[in-house]
């Protein structure tokens, strides 16, 4: 069975589960309040299980299944939770401020999760295609190495040719680019614009350089394209890692708000 068919089946099962939950709860409860009350507890159970995935990662010595299996359950249960949330609130925008806070928190948590799922499926093949792939932690070191190599080349070229055109180009254009990570947004959308931009810049200056300088320029252009690739790696890895800094805090906030919401309902309904 191929991946697409598998995913379609899982989505179908999730949708069927949502419909089943709706009809079973409607059948078992006698009023809208009871229906929503039961749905609320079910939603809370789902939230708790979703958060458990984070705990499972920390207790990986426990024989409770592979993380990959948990991840699959996490994705589809997340989708089911989204459906349950809308069934529970019965509208697109809840009434009370606390319920709105809970709704916003849960929505951010679910949407960030969905985004995380999408980037974890879309970005790795881009990195393979645009290779070579590098370790995220080593990118600052590689970036320094690129800059150092460019500066060494320039120093040598100026010494030999006694002309500063290339050094001027470096100071005006290239140095700021080589100093830090650039073009985050472009890379996030897998745009080739940064690579094209530098190709044009190098093309523009090439005709004003001597033969010796042009040889150095070729090497500098290669190093610049390497820097573009390092920026791509850095940008994509940052998105693949840092979405969790939104997802996890909001998941715990949602859990906290859901517990508070539950206490309110139990106490005052």
């Amino acid at each position, binding site marked *: 069975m191929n991946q697409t068919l598998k995913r379609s089946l899982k989505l179908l099962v999730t949708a069927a589960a949502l419909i089943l939950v709706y009809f079973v709860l409607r059948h078992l409860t006698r009023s809208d309040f009871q229906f929503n009350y039961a749905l609320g507890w079910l939603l809370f159970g789902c939230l708790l299980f979703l958060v458990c995935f984070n705990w499972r*990662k920390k207790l*990986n*010595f426990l024989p409770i299944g592979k993380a*990959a299996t948990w991840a699959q359950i996490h994705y589809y249960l997340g989708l089911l939770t989204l459906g349950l949330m809308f069934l529970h609130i019965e509208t697109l925008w809840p009434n009370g401020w606390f319920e709105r806070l809970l709704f916003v928190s849960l929505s951010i948590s679910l949407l960030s999760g969905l985004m995380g799922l999408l980037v974890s499926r879309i970005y*790795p093949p881009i990195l393979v295609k645009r290779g070579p792939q590098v370790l995220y932690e080593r990118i600052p070191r590689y970036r320094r190495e690129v800059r150092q190599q460019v500066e060494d080349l320039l120093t040598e070229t100026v010494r030999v040719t006694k002309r500063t055109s290339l050094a001027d180009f470096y100071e005006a254009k290239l140095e700021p680019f080589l100093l830090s990570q650039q073009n985050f947004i472009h890379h996030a959308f897998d745009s080739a614009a940064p690579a094209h931009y530098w190709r044009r810049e190098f093309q523009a200056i090439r005709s004003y350089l001597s033969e010796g300088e042009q040889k150095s320029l070729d090497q500098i252009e290669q190093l610049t394209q390497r820097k573009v690739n390092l920026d791509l790696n850095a940008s994509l*890895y940052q998105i693949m890692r840092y979405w969790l800094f939104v997802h996890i805090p909001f998941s715990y906030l949602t859990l906290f708000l859901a517990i508070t919401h539950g206490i309110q309902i139990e106490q005052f309904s």
Partner: protein
Amino acid sequence: MTDVNTRTQIKRPKKWDHAFSADMAPEQVDALLKREPFASMIPPAPESGADDAKAEKVRVKIRDILLNESRLLNFDKDEIVVRQGDYGATAYFIVSGNVSVLFNVDKSMLGRGQATKKSLWSHFKRVLGNPDTPEARDPEQYDPAGATEDRLQQGVFLQDVPRVIAAQKDDPDEMGPGEIFGEIGALSRSIRSATIIATRETQLLEIKWQGLRDLIQVSKSFRESVDKVYRERSLRSLLLSLDLFQKLPESALQALVDGAEFVSVGKRDWNTNAQDTTPIVNEGDYASALLILRSGFAKKTKAYGHSEYTTSYLSKGDVFGLEEMLRAYQGDDSGNSYRHGIAALGYTDMISLPGSLCDRHLFPHLEAAALDAHAQESTPGDPLEDTKKNQLMDFFVDERFINGTETMLINLDRCTGCDDCVRACASNHDNNPRFIRHGKQFENIMVANACMHCADPVCMIGCPTGAIHRSENGQVVINDNTCIGCQTCANSCPYDNIRMVEIRDRKGEYILDEQMRPINKATKCDLCYDNPVAPACQNACPHDALRRVNLADEEAIKDWLK
């Protein structure tokens, strides 16, 4: 800054800090030296003083080896000494009594214990108590007093011995005092090829393979006798492990063993230049012998255009030239020459069975159907298709990864770089990850820098203390207590998967020796062999992007990559 004088200091670890057994008394060793085979290892003391000193030097050397690398074990009647299929790093000399050699005993009768796994609670405690500093150790664990290993699974007896013996194809071989066994597994870092039981009360001298290696270096006559026994027994056990030879009568098998030739091709230290290939047989050569791989790897090639392409790879136990020789035996002239060439990848050990020997002792015993099946001309594949199909395997072979049985493969199309695998590994190893999530790449596949638990772990060859060894289940692991930090294993590993680290105490200060030099230890992936959920890296990957795979199992890899 911490005052150097307050730093934790321990004695620099040395070979034989930890004797194999604390119970091995010098008097026992002196008594052993008077018995065979040790007595004949020591040159007879002549009249002249100079030669007398030489004999004494040898005697002291052997005495030290026995004192530090061996131990005496007593076995009762029917007690199991070694089990077929287990990994072993020791050989046994029979001091008194007798043992019997059994093949293919039902596994359920061998009383094999479960590998020692830590409890969930101890793992939980470990995760909670993982030190913040890297490579932290408790200096007291390096106290040299006491033995390093205990005898595992004491007192397991083979039940219903008459029935087991009756089930054997031939009468079991019996061995007596002065004889040695277990040396194949010990010297070749491979699994035990037979089960050995004591047939009456028996005393054995168990010797670590490092000790055996040292004894071989000390005594030429011992080296020759071990070599002879080793070659004959390993040859017999290899032939018996192959379907082709299993139904042969004993006389035919013995004739093949006697007439077989050992062929070694390539450089033994292939790990220093992993790219070497050495031709063994050229396509079109006269098909004079049946070749069986004993160890190493070879590639099977066929000429195409101005070059040749690889049709498949051969590993231990694979047979080459059977089709051609059988066709020649059946009178077909087209069987006179090899239809493929083979080349050794690095170093390859082979057995060559001459055609005349096979015609007399092998082929007449094969059933007609088997003869026809083996002699059937294999359809040549499309060279270009074969080349495309083999590209991934070619990559593994070119980089010599094919040696790996638990290689860490990462599917880069799925890997998000989340490092959950690294964290899981670290949490199982006191906060120290034992691999680097980086390595050589082929298209979307990365072979990460993690110990591959090789079929032939060359890292074990030079270890002076036996700290790096195979666990019962075959994982290559390092005993941190007996590692002396000599770097031999790290230098021998062709894949750079063993790392030397400078150890610290729990306060984070480096542990130093008497000369204030840091103490080094070798570290590597141990496949979480004491973890109930192993390996942690594979289990922790949420994207199913990481697998530990046997690279010889090409189909499983392709299935996973789909």
